[in-house]
């Protein structure tokens, strides 16, 4: 069936089987292979994209359900010659090894920093009532939807903490 997906600000008109996921639409129908297929079960986070600004697993949602939604993928951030601050921090801090989970980590971190700025609590936030501090522990907790089998976690956390600091989101 016909569906119009708005991806990184551009409308794409596609004729899709209703069972096609957003992930497969991106990878197979639009050639946007930056979003990776890790487990295809919503468990690893490698396929994370932003849907209307919020992070979701693109392997777990059908493309036809997102006619008119704004989908943002890794391809919309910086380019190799002009990295955005988060991408740059990942490079400088060695926030990966094999790199396969990296696009998902970066998309997830992009949304996570916004969520924290908006005052969303995490499970370990001490209070549901006051805005949480984005401590290193909070970063780790909030990034737990993205697995990295190389276990570059200390470096990933460090890269995100650097951007947190640069954005003035102080950790107490």
């Amino acid at each position, binding site marked *: 069936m016909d569906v119009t997906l708005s991806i990184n600000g551009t409308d794409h008109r596609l004729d899709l089987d209703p069972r096609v996921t957003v992930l497969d639409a991106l*990878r197979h129908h639009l*050639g946007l*292979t*930056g*979003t*990776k*297929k*890790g*487990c*295809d*079960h919503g*468990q*690893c986070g*490698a396929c994370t994209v932003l849907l209307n600004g919020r992070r979701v697993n693109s392997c777990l949602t059908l493309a036809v359900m997102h006619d008119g939604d704004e989908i943002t*993928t*890794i*391809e919309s*951030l*910086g*380019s*190799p*010659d002009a*990295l955005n601050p988060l*991408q*740059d921090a*990942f*490079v*400088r801090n*060695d*926030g*990966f*090894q*094999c*790199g*396969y*989970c*990296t*696009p998902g980590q*970066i998309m997830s971190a992009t949304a996570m920093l916004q969520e924290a700025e908006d005052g969303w609590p995490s499970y370990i936030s001490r209070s549901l009532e006051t805005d949480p501090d984005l401590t290193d*522990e909070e*970063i*780790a*907790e909030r*990034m*737990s939807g*993205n*697995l*990295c*089998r*190389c*276990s*570059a*976690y*200390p*470096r*990933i*956390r460090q890269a995100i903490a650097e951007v947190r600091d640069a954005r003035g989101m102080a950790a107490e």
Partner: protein
Amino acid sequence: MSVAKPLPHDAAPLHVTGQARYVDDIPLPKGALHLAFGMSEEAHGRLLALDLEAVKTAPGVVAVLAAGDLPFANDVSPSPSPEPLLATDTVEYIGQPLFLVIAESHLAARRAARLGLAEIAPLPAILTIDDAIAADSRFEDGPRLYQKGDAARAIAEAERRLEGSLEIGGQEHFYLEGQAAVALPQEGGDMVVHSSTQHPTEIQHKVAEAIGRHMNSVRVEVRRMGGGFGGKESQGNALAVSCAIGARLTGLPCSMRYDRDDDMTITGKRHDFRIDYRVGFDGKGRIAGVEFVQFCRCGWSMDLSLPVADRAMLHADNAYDIPHMRVESHRLKTNTQSATAFRGFGGPQGMLGIERVLDHVAHSVGRDPAEVRTLNFYRDVAVRSAGSGKRFGGAHSPIRAEFETQTTHYGMPVEDFILNGMVERLRETSDYSSRKAAISKWNASNALLKKGISLTPVKFGISFTLTHLNQAGALVHVYQDSSIHLNHGGTEMGQGLFQKVAQVAASRFGVGPERVKITATDTGKVPNTSATAASSGSDLNGMAVQVACDAIRDRLAVFVAERAQADPGSVRFEDNEVHVGSERIPFEKVVLDAYQARVSLSSTGFYATPKVQWDRIKGQGRPFFYFAYGAAVSEVVIDTLTGEYRILRTDILHDCGTSLNPAIDIGQIEGGYVQGAGWLTTEELVWDDKGRLRTHAPSTYKIPACSDRPEVFNAALWDGANREETVYRSKAVGEPPLMLGISAFLALSDAVASCGSGYPALRAPATPEAVLAAVRRVQA
């Protein structure tokens, strides 16, 4: 010089922008087909009939092949023992490929594959170690035996004796990028294959056999893998071979990738072990003799199980000079996935065996296990090479004992031992003693939560134990614009090999690494490569690249020296310039001039590791060029009522020789530790009584997440050069750090031990359930 600099991975800007391509990201030509396997639902049985009618008529299906339909070899084995791609008359595990579906889409192939009907007459399934022992189901005729001295007598005569048994679970690789391959048919029946593999030459070899061609008709290319960890040393053969067969049959490009649950169901994992031990020791914990019986569950096919089990035997001493030792190894054949290479390759299991023994002995004599470990260490060996080490003579003349040979239980001299010094330093930097005391105090006043701490060493042998694999080739071109094209036989899976090797090349020419282009591993450029495995990637390929670069550099030196009437030996390559006499010529000018003077600017390089020779049947020789060392202190806290736990702090000191790239090495160390700790804590594989793997998805198989890493995590590099002549005196780093994770497991044991007087005898993995059971045991 660009070596020793902490530069990021070569493809870093591509990774963070999603532009780095993995096999499944390669755009396929129109009309490409997709493959899937139909799998056995029985663990063991006679395959009586396969009804594939419904598969053939399913939407989108182009062809369906069973074993009898294969044109040439039906074999994907990496060992001398055959391993069929598709089952013939017997099925040997649940998940074994029975037939191959070729269809217009991945989904169509997978859907159709589920429609096959296999008529299988069940045979008794041998699933567990006990089943296999009872049925005497094994590879090789009987157990292997490596020993020194007379362990039985030493144990019998010892002041004290202990015995025990340790169950060690397997481990799923869970490379984030699943297995994948693409085959592109070429003119004249040639084949180009892209594969997510650690071993391109093996893929080339197996594909050639399967399509009835010589190896020169097949070219395999590997740009990168999304993680390998050993799981892509042999397990990619089936996909690449299938794609090539499909491409040959249809004349169209064929692509195959396993979905996650298929990947976990079909492919092999780390070998699980049971290790029985007997040990004799004195009242201080000095060990007189040890006997190990290692039972290794190999699964249905031989795959790499023999060298894996050998390496487990070779690491049964770890860091300890044990006068009498006997290691017996049983390689058991079972109707489960064929266990395969996994970071450490048997070494971790063998090492955990002796670390358990040390822990048990220390508990028995009531001493700090760290002290009992040091008591049993090999001696540190002073650096002997002239000019680079300590001065001997005078008041500091070393005692005679330092020069007496100390050998392992397989007859290899231990000539580079440094753990006494390393552990002393680590004890200081980690504040071990005062934390140990603080934990005792804390435990005395806390009933619910108990803390534990453990310091464990790693001594890991570097080299392939199959000696002929210790070779590598490289191909280097310098173009007339002075850009450098670099190729070698190693593959990149995230370990940073390409970056390290590029730094070596840049250093040889005295130029910046940005001038060096790292290109995809390609069997057409460098032939007969060994797998990128056994931590050997940078040792072997770095040296081969150095040899190739030096050949070109020497030609350039002769060329400029001749022009300047200087000695070629005095020519230096530094700072993007060539220094000859008092002259400094830009590198690019030298290259262009040399080209115009008709000097060859291309070279191969070849390296074979010296000194190694090994008889795996006798268990005697020098299987390793050198040892890599490390030590870790882990502190944990357990909840004595639920068994839940956390790693509070980890301190690591690790030996990379003179690091080629400290940033990459630290990443390997941290990642290896977390992966090793995961293996021994949360990662539990469960098979049901029919032989079906129940943990075949990430929802049930739990690898560490971001919040599972230690709360405080300090990793540092030991500052000593490799005593052997490796590339820039560096040491291999891929596998050894995984075994630092043993400290987390034994810290849990320490915490459990504080709950009572019994020995915890924790099983691995120490899931919360296992920890709680152990707490109750020691309290009983």
